[in-house]
């Protein structure tokens, strides 16, 4: 019989994030499927607040490692806390929400416990009494479903598997687990953000707006219209509160002395060596014939595209709707209509 543990770091005084609550729900689902209970383990400066938020989740136990040294995201202290908690719970399956802080340590923690880790888990199921996970291989080109024999099995689960746990807060009976902060030569010193007027990546946006190289190429009238492109794109992002993704070629163009979009960096790149963002809707524009590797689009639900080429790669099975039109004209009008609607 498995011993299941939901494990996550906390931010001082804050309740758990949506991702964490989804992971909690996933954990509960697994426990139910296996006909067993689960426990909750948290660490940070003041995990009690977070624990109270999920007091009614049905966990058999609440465990915590508390202390100022465990507040900041840092390998040595996070791994030590997680290890202590997993040992205290004698967990055989450990589930945490995917995110930079947990992703940084889970494999190291699994190694310390003599088990194995799997990250980017997109599905969790039980087949024949045996838990199995789903995850993607080769940059989201193929999906594997697998089980492991080794224990503990430490997982980082992506959002989207189960709806976030909802329930009334209360007072959780938290057991403190002792953990001596290990010696470390590292400390977090701050956070760097891109300037706010250039904040184009919005992971929680409903819509992903992807720009292709066609925005900076010569238009049908023979002109290159980069300043206008910038204005239209930034305007759309603001009005639609969308997140910006880009094709590789458009990001690469900055090295070629061509007029480029100044706000684009490789952080915006979607697919291949870029990211695989998760959004309900995605709108691709000016793909310029680039093969839309749906690698980056794997987790985008509804897909539409605007391209002047009716035979471009989107037109066959890759998009729900392809509008054969000039993106400059369409987005210009879209921005107008959105501005009317939102009064912005």
């Amino acid at each position, binding site marked *: 019989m498995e011993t299941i543990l939901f494990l996550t770091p906390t931010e001082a005084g804050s309740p758990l994030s949506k991702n964490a609550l989804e992971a909690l729900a996933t954990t509960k689902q697994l426990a139910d499927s296996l006909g067993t209970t689960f426990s909750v383990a948290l660490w940070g400066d003041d995990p009690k607040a977070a624990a109270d938020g999920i007091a009614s989740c049905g966990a058999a136990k609440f465990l915590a490692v508390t202390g100022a040294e465990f507040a900041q995201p840092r390998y040595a202290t996070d791994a030590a806390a997680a290890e202590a908690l997993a040992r205290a719970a004698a967990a055989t399956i450990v589930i945490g929400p995917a995110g930079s802080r947990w992703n940084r340590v889970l494999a190291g923690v699994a190694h310390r416990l003599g088990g194995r880790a799997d990250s980017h888990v997109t599905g969790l199921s039980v087949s024949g009494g045996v838990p199995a996970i789903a995850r993607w291989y080769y940059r989201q080109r193929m999906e594997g479903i697998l089980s492991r024999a080794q224990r503990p099995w430490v997982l980082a689960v992506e959002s989207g598997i189960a709806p976030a746990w909802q329930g009334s807060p209360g007072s959780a009976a938290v057991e403190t687990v002792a953990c001596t902060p290990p010696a470390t030569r590292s400390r977090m010193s701050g956070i760097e953000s891109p300037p706010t007027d250039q904040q184009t990546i919005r992971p929680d946006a409903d819509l992903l707006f992807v720009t292709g190289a066609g925005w900076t190429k010569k238009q049908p009238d023979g002109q290159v219209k980069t300043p206008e492109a910038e204005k239209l794109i930034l305007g759309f992002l603001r009005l639609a509160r969308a997140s910006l993704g880009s094709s590789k*070629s458009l990001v690469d163009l900055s090295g*070629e*002395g061509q007029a480029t979009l100044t706000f684009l960096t490789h952080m915006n790149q979607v697919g291949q060596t870029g990211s695989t963002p998760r959004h309900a809707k995605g709108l691709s524009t000016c793909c310029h014939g680039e*093969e839309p590797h749906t690698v980056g689009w794997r987790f985008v639900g509804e897909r539409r595209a605007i391209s002047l080429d009716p*035979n*471009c790669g989107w037109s*066959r099975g890759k998009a729900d709707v392809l509008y054969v039109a000039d993106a400059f004209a369409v987005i210009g009008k879209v921005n107008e209509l959105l501005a009317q609607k939102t009064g912005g």
Partner: protein
Amino acid sequence: MTNVDDPAIERPRMDADVVCVGFGPASGGFLTTLSRAILNEDGSTAIESPSAPGLPLQVLCYERADDLGFGVSGVVTRARGIRESFPDLDPAQIPMAAPVSDEKFLYLLDPVGASCRPALMRVADVAIRAMGGVLGVRDDAMELPWTPDFLAKHGGLVLSIGQFNQWVGQQVMGSGAVQIWPASPVGDVLVEKDGVVGVRLVDQGVTKDGKPTEGFTPGMDVHAALTVVADGPVGPIGRQLDKAFGIPDGHHTRDWAIGMKFVVDLPESCELEPGTVIHTLGYPEPEIFGFFYVHPDRVASMGIFVPSWFDSPARNAYKYLQHWMLHPAIWRHVKGGRLRSWGAKTLQESGRRGEPRLAGKGFARIGEGSGSTNVLTNSGVDEAWTTGVMLAEGVLELLKNKQPFTAENLEAAYVNRRRKSWVDKEGRVAERARDGFQRGIIPGLIGMMATGLTKGFLSLPGKSVPPHRRVPTFEEYYRGRITPEEIQAIRKESDAKGISSHAALMERAGWPAISFDGELLVSHQDALLLGGKVQAPDGYADHVEFIYPRDCESCGSKICIEMCSGQAIFPGENGRPSFDREKCVYCGACLWNCSKGNPKDSEKGLIEFHAGAGGLHSAEN
């Protein structure tokens, strides 16, 4: 164009013993033979380096493409030279290789009625259809009862050149004796006094016009006692040597073809065995020959050759390739299959008559660019390989006897060897085989048969002229089928859209529109982008140069736009063609598809084709 001649640029220099330009079958043969002699079995040095004493012979090969496997063409070859180099060769070791199992020759009738056939052929078609039952006509094609001996490839191999090159590269590199560097285009050959002293790699960190940017890295000069030029039929280094040292009297390279092909996953219902070889002739135009080679695991390479003596200014391989594939005799094998990849390449069809100076002080030439292709049997791979082997044998002799690479020594050690070989003997038989095609398809076929059957004794004469002197205008070509006004209108519309005109013209001339199914029939750009397969690393100058752009403005035909395999050349401003490196597959068609002559060299057009990195990026070709 490049900063080559700017003496102010300081270039780093490196010294080696032998430097090769290009990695294909010819370099494969050369390096395989050479590398085996450089080191002893125990890894100690057998041939010491004159340029780096204490080290083994320093041999470098620079290849333009991203990787060694990115060549183009499915081939069928008798593989005589290749088998001599690899006596224990098991085709199963080389991906996509299969021994030839069956060979067929199909004459394709015209199912669509748009093909431009000479009267004699139309008569023959009618007769063939009438006697269809007796002649075994099926799916609008007649199978020839036998394959002429000179074309037959019995005992041969069906290969993917990409996979073959990769495999050879692995063997050669595995020896540890030779270095092969992909993604390293050679821009210029270094000539000093009366000989070649090495090569210069292409400048990096420049704009598309060749102007230095912040990241400017001048191409390195690599000096070597011997420069082996194996850069193929459209290689710029070969052309530089021709310019510097002249070509033999009476020789020319006026005859070309574009080979364009698909690699297809055949449907499960296909019954063709691996090693099946099918040659076709007659459709979509009589001048266009086709080929279909079956690899293992139900994969096939298939395509067409569009020759320079097919006198249409709207010639373009892609549309014709699709129509060819739709011919019932071909379609019945592929319907339900899936397109895997695509590619195109120029073939040198002048054969031995296109042979340049094979060797001189400090240099030697091998492979297709050295005129080794046999234009009677339509084979080039094994011939190229063997010229490489022969050069290596000669080089090893000279090294052993500590003789320098002078013109006389290379003549004796390499050229003489080549003259005595089957490559040259059979090349001489083939030399006039295709002359008849200069006059038309029927004289050409008759001439080829005559030459083949009499082993070179008989041939039908025909004088070739540079392509720009034979290609007609659109109005001339379409006379009687499309009016000049309509042609004008179509071309104006295409220009405005920035696309070529041949698709619209072909449709107007009766070719049915092709509806794409996303499996086998896709748009030209989709074929190019199948899996994202054309690369254009930044920092390199455009390698296709329009030498006198003002003259392009007034050009009526602009066949460069029509013929570009990747649609990389397209209508630009003021009537000048534009070039998009991101679509160029380095086929070299633009080199011989210019309708204007170069005032400074009557053999050439107005487009120069330099060295560059990137291009087609597929290992299955």
